[in-house]
Each structure stands twice: as structure tokens, then as C-alpha cells.
């Protein structure tokens, strides 16, 4: 049977007793499929990461490891390098030295291809309706059962009623919710979220936390740069110290 870690993640595999020639169809759900394998445990490891931006060293010898089933919240003062770290891990920024490994994923794909990246922009087109925006991402990210997933994602982020409304008329918070709904239209084991709660109200922040919890419960890995605690079930905080003296607010300055 499944062993459970403290974090509640399934590890280990169900032993496979009977195998028909050609194997069991992989899509069959567990009760009908004696060979159903839990997805392998994913792990993102960065070692001695050094990243420069604009001639300054932002990350200097940073190491971190995150295991599927947990949400790693990156905290730190403005300018500490949270966005830089996320974009480096996603493979958008080159590192000066150090290694980034993603274990347990698809070896044929890059980290970016197995990740959702939600940055400061929402990837929302003003001239498409809410539904068309999500349907495009579902098709573009090559999801199966796109229509169904889009429906679920819209419902989860409370955008049902705005379905056929052009995205141009959405409020900033609603656009953010639409941007976040993309996380649910295609399954990717890794989520990189940069300030995901930007312009969200309390209720929407809770919906986001529920989505993150559901993702980690399924063995997914979430890295989020955020200043809010979010109230997640399986979260760990990783504090980035400011690399630049000029950006660090000392206690004495904070009192002024």
C-alpha cells in the first residue's frame, strides 16, 4: 500500500500483480487498474546558483531543494531576487554558475515545458472573451478534454458569470483570476508563481490557496514569491536575504 510522508504525499508504488500482454491501459483509474502507478515524486534542486542581472550579482551561491507535495513560499525584501530566482529556475534566465535539476519529471522535456509560469503579466488578451482566452491556452498547451477543464477552471476562480464577456472589461483582480485559471486548464507538475495574489481580494486568495493545496496534494510542486502567508496546508518558507546592502532595511532605518 501507499506509504505516507508527514506531508501526506504518496510515495512508493502499488505492486503490479497481473500484467496482460502489452500492459494495462495507463488511463484506467486505480480501482480497475492493478498496475496504476502513482506519478513519480518530483524534486527541484538548485545548487550554488549564481545569477547576475545588469552587472550585479543578485543570487550568490543560493541552494534550495523542493519536493513534490509542498509549496515553497519565497519571501524576502523587494529586490532580494525572488523574481530572478523563479525565472532562473524556469530556465528563462541563464545562471553564471551552479546547477538546476528537476528529478522525477519527463526527461525529454525542459523544466519550462513541465511548468506553469505566472509572472507579473496575466497572459490575457483584451479582445478575446474570458472563455476564449482560457480555451486558447488549453488548446495551445495541448490539453486533453479542454472544454471540460476550462469549465472547471472558470468555476473554481468564480469567473462563470463573466464567461462571454470580453477580457478588456474585467477589473484588475478579475484579470488576475483569469491568468491564474490557466494553472488549472493544463496539468503541469511545477508551478512558478510570482506575486500570485497581486490585486486579488480575500475570497479569491482563498480560492488560489485551495488550488495550490489541491495541486500539492496530487504530488505537484509550487514555488511562489509572495508576501502573504496564504494559509496553505503544506507550505514551507524560504527566506531570501537581500544580496545588495542598499536594498536591506535595517531595524534602525525601519523605525524612522
Amino acid at each position: 500500500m501507499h506509504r505516507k510522508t508527514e506531508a501526506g504525499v504518496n510515495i512508493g508504488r502499488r505492486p503490479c500483480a497481473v500484467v496482460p500482454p502489452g500492459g494495462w491501459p495507463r488511463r484506467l483509474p486505480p480501482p480497475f487498474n492493478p498496475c496504476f502507478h502513482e506519478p513519480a515524486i518530483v524534486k527541484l534542486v538548485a545548487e550554488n546558483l549564481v545569477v547576475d542581472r545588469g552587472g550585479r550579482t543578485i543570487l550568490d551561491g543560493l541552494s534550495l531543494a523542493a519536493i513534490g507535495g509542498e509549496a515553497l513560499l519565497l519571501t524576502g525584501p523587494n529586490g532580494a531576487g525572488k523574481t530572478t530566482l523563479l525565472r532562473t529556475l524556469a530556465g528563462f534566465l541563464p545562471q553564471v554558475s551552479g546547477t538546476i535539476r528537476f528529478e522525477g519529471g519527463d526527461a525529454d522535456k525542459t523544466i519550462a515545458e513541465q511548468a506553469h509560469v505566472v509572472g507579473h503579466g496575466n497572459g490575457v488578451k483584451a479582445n478575446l472573451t474570458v472563455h476564449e482566452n482560457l480555451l486558447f491556452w488549453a488548446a495551445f498547451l495541448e490539453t486533453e478534454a479542454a472544454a471540460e477543464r476550462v469549465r472547471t477552471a472558470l468555476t473554481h476562480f468564480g469567473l462563470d458569470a463573466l464567461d462571454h464577456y470580453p477580457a478588456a472589461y474585467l477589473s484588475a483582480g478579475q484579470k488576475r483570476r483569469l491568468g491564474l485559471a490557466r494553472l488549472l486548464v493544463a496539468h503541469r507538475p511545477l508551478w512558478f508563481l510570482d506575486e500570485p495574489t497581486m490585486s486579488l481580494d480575500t475570497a479569491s486568495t482563498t480560492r488560489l490557496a485551495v488550488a495550490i493545496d489541491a495541486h500539492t496534494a496530487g504530488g505537484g510542486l509550487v514555488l511562489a514569491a509572495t508576501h502573504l502567508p496564504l494559509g496553505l496546508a503544506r507550505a514551507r518558507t524560504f527566506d531570501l536575504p537581500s544580496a545588495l546592502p542598499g536594498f536591506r532595511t535595517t531595524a534602525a532605518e525601519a523605525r524612522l
Partner: protein
Amino acid sequence: MNAFWTLVGRDIRLAVREGGALGTALGFFLIVVAMMPLGLGPDLNLLSRIAPGILWIALLLAALLSLGRIFETDYEDGTLDVFATASLPLELVAAAKALAHWLTTGIPLALLAPVLGVLLNLDVKTYPVLMATMLVGTPAVSFLGAIGAALTVKARRGGLLLALIVLPLYVPTLIFGISVISASAGPSGVGSSFLILMAISLISIALGPLAAAAALRIQLQ
């Protein structure tokens, strides 16, 4: 490849809904060509002699106006980040966007050219050749333009920079586009120039997306 056609479809839909960009390009094309006879005087022989050149240059300038749009909005709203996480390579993303640009700008401009030829007293017999050269030559305009658009995506108000980067690349297309039209009146026919024009477009289609994707990877940083 589904993702490729999905992206082409989305870009065409956006271009149709926004409308403004194509309208601006067509309007600019019309205005530039319409101003030529006013500036050059009513010398019909002169106008019909220089008409192919004016039409081609005006077409290139009009297409240039809409090039910035290829990647700019996607960069601004964060769509480019998501493109970079797709299993569709960035090269094909660039190709899809350049193809959509050709379908929504290159073809309408080429179809408008004969109409504007009337303003320049262009010989009616050269209309089919003119349209053929423009339809065959404009893919190079879109696919080479994508390189410039990708390079200037981060530059605020990079329109002029885009023109400086891209217009020199259009020189071969312009030369052979015109030479096809002038050759069509001569005894040797359009053959070789037309083939070279096609070759320029095919090379642009093959190499443009590679260069544009390389530029986009730098912009992602």
C-alpha cells in the same frame, strides 16, 4: 502542430477584432500612393514608369507600421512567458505569428495594390504580374520583419529602430519585385527574377523564425 494552428487562428482572430492595425496599414498605403501624383505633377508617362517602384516602397512602409504588433502586445501582457513554457518550440511560435501577420497584412496590401495602380496610371497589363510579385514577395516582409519585431520588443517606442533594422533586409525583395515587373514588359519574360523572388521568400520563411526565436529568448531574460 495543433498548437501551431491554434496560435495562427488566435492571431487572425485578434487582428480581425482589433481591426485598427490592418486599417492603419491599408490607409497608410492609400495615402502615400495618393500623394505621389500630387507631388510629382500630372505627367502620366512618368507616373506609369515609376508606379511599380512607388507601390512596392509604399507597401513595405505600410507593412512596417504593423510589424511592431507581432510580439509587442504578447510581451507586454506576459503571454510570451507562457509561449516559452509550451512544448511548441519558440521557433514555431515565431513562425506562426509571422504567418498570421502575412495572412492579415501582406495579403490585403497585395490585393489593394492594383486598385492604387489606377491612381498612378499603371498599365493594366502589368496588374497580374504586380499582384503575383506582391503575393510571392510579402512572406519575406512578414518573416524578416518578425526578426526586427523580436529584437525591438523591449524597446519602448522602438518603431524607428525597427525600421532601421528591417528596411535594409527588404532590399533584395524590393529589387527583384521591381525587376520582375520591368522584365514582364521585355522579351525575356519574368522567369528568373520571379524565381529569385520566390527563393528570397522561402529563405526568409526558413531562417526568419530561427533568428526571431533567438532574439525572443534574449528578451525573456
